[in-house]
């Protein structure tokens, strides 16, 4: 496997302080490798967006990062903790190293500026030397990349369809050819043709530039096809992590399993969809044990009292996958220290 570019270690994110605080992300360990597409899927409200914004410190108040480290490995340099950067350093780091496509595309675009202005803006901020003409032509090129005709450069955001706005955001994220691209449900409003086109572009660019992608989506079929590894989140924690096909064929965590039995297939015979009974956990007061335990068909006593740790399961020893489930305890000393 390639060397890591981004290592998230023990990230904790809360909304609010004290008793009312929502623990949206808890003790997340995740590594993004060079040139890799890491898919992140999971329950709605499980903290995917929070994780994505949290690691770049873009959470709006009252979000705050309670602890953890986000190590970034720059090209040929010493890794540094993104969470410890000064605002100035952070600004230089942003977009040039990691760019983000936000979930709400409409609100991500400034309503009073033209699309072109907003694209040109980031080019200018990180490359002040470039000429206006070159920036504009780059903007045109970027739009073409995501399949928007260049005559829409002068459109204001409210004149674009939902999908077009998303594509503008994707184009913007690729503008500086950063090393890490975080995409939070970037294709929800895109048709599959466009989606495929764009992802193909992305793959091609990745091949060429070697950047890594953290890809958040609910479209599991897409993930399986497109990503190298998939992490599944539940209740603010990563519950399973594996290569796409592995996960699809052989999911270990009962929640992942449930997910995979919840989406319809386009081809072949209609198959039975089971879904996952029960309701999501309350992130303000999580159960003491595994967050999924109340809904889990296989839960046993331990699940209700101890939080399982994410680790390589003993029954798949040697593989590069990990799971947090007592059904598949790890080989190592079961240091189930509640964090």
């Amino acid at each position, binding site marked *: 496997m390639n060397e890591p570019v981004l290592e998230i270690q*023990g990230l*904790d994110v809360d909304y*609010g*302080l004290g*008793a*009312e605080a929502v623990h949206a992300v808890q003790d997340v360990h995740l590594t993004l490798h060079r040139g890799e597409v890491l898919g992140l899927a999971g329950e709605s409200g499980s903290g995917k967006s929070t994780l994505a*914004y*949290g690691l770049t*410190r*873009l*959470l*709006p*108040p*009252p*979000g*705050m*990062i*309670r*602890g*953890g480290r986000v190590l970034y490995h720059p090209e040929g340099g010493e890794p540094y903790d993104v*969470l*410890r950067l000064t*605002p100035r350093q*952070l600004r230089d780091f942003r977009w040039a190293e990691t760019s983000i496509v936000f979930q709400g595309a*409409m609100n991500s675009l400034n309503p009073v500026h033209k699309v072109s202005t907003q694209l040109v803006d980031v080019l200018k901020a990180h490359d002040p030397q470039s000429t206006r003409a070159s920036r504009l032509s780059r903007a045109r090129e970027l739009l073409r990349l995501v399949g928007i005709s260049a005559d829409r450069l002068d459109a204001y955001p*409210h004149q674009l369809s939902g999908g077009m706005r998303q594509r503008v955001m994707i184009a913007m994220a690729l503008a500086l050819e950063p090393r890490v691209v975080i995409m939070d449900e970037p294709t929800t409003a895109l048709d599959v043709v466009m989606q495929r086109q764009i992802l193909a572009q992305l793959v091609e660019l990745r091949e060429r530039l070697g950047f890594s992608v953290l890809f958040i989506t609910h479209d599991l079929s897409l993930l399986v096809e497109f990503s190298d590894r998939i992490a599944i989140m539940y209740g603010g924690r990563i519950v399973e992590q594996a290569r796409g096909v592995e996960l699809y064929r052989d999911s270990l965590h009962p929640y992942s399993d449930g997910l995979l039995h919840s989406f319809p297939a386009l081809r072949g015979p209609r198959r039975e969809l089971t879904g996952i009974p029960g309701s999501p956990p*309350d992130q*303000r*007061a999580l159960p003491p044990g595994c967050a999924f335990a109340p809904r889990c068909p296989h839960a046993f006593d331990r699940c209700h009292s101890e939080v399982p740790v994410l680790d390589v399961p003993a029954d798949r020893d040697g593989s590069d996958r990990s799971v947090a489930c007592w059904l598949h305890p790890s080989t190592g000393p079961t240091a189930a220290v509640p*964090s």
Partner: protein
Amino acid sequence: MAVPAADLKAAAPEPLPPDSITGPAARRRRFRFLSGGKALTGLIVLAFFVVLAVIGPWIAPYDPSARSDDLIEAPSGRHWFGTTHLGQDVFSQVLAGTRSVMLVGVTAGVVATILAVLVGVTSGYLGGTPGEGLSALSNVFLVIPALPLIIIIGTALPSGGDTLVAVVIGLTSWAWGARVLRAQTLSLRRRDYVEAARASGEPTWRIIFFEILPNLTAVIASSFVGTVVFAVMSEITLAFVGVSAFSDWNWGTILFWAQSQQALAQGAWWWFVPAGLAIAVLGTALSLLNFGIDEFVSPRLRSAGTTRVKNAEGKTVRLRAGFTPVLGREKR
């Protein structure tokens, strides 16, 4: 909220988990903006003036118009704010004058704000002929110069009470607010959530008052504060330039007397300073209250509550968009 959440809690069919947000808690959050010292200060000062407005004339130590033999005396134990050229007690005049100032300010502010909201938001939202008509109306009112108009109307009315003055000021000063609100509304009316409300069958007045208006609160609040200050200033100005025939004592009449007797040139600063300061303090209190408004209005800011938190090292970090604070792990 239209429905008091506390009642719902009692009536809820199933027991709520003990830690869920209950009505009072939500309400507490709503008023958390007061915890920011500024807004609270504003509120307290305002309350103080309101109380003075009610009891001022009663607690005044002297009849504010009564002459005495202590002409132009500096402040002393007997006359806290000194006396006038007729030996009247300035302190009593200030006290007695509060009522009229508050009455005029608040009434005019309310009248103008209501008109501004009605005309501005409605014309912005409706568009078309009625919208343009209302907009023309507010433009006409905007074009008429308010202060001279007030002077003239004040002149034409043989002798009106405070309320009349307040209404006149209110009626002549709403157009600005209407104009600003209209413009804001124009940009809000096509927002998705307004469309969504429309599509869900909300009647127009409800869309105006419940969907658009809350998003305009910051503007409305500042225009309300603006009009109140404007109204107070107008009343005082009228009295100061000697045009008004209004109530006997307000801060403006005190200043008028001080000015016409050239108090400052005489060295009688006490005659001139208290009333002016009182106006300034009142205006400041209103503006301070305004500071809390944004937090009161925008739920995003409201739930943020404080603007600062302490991190693990005990340093204070400012909460701000774009730079999420990192607290560092603390022992759980």
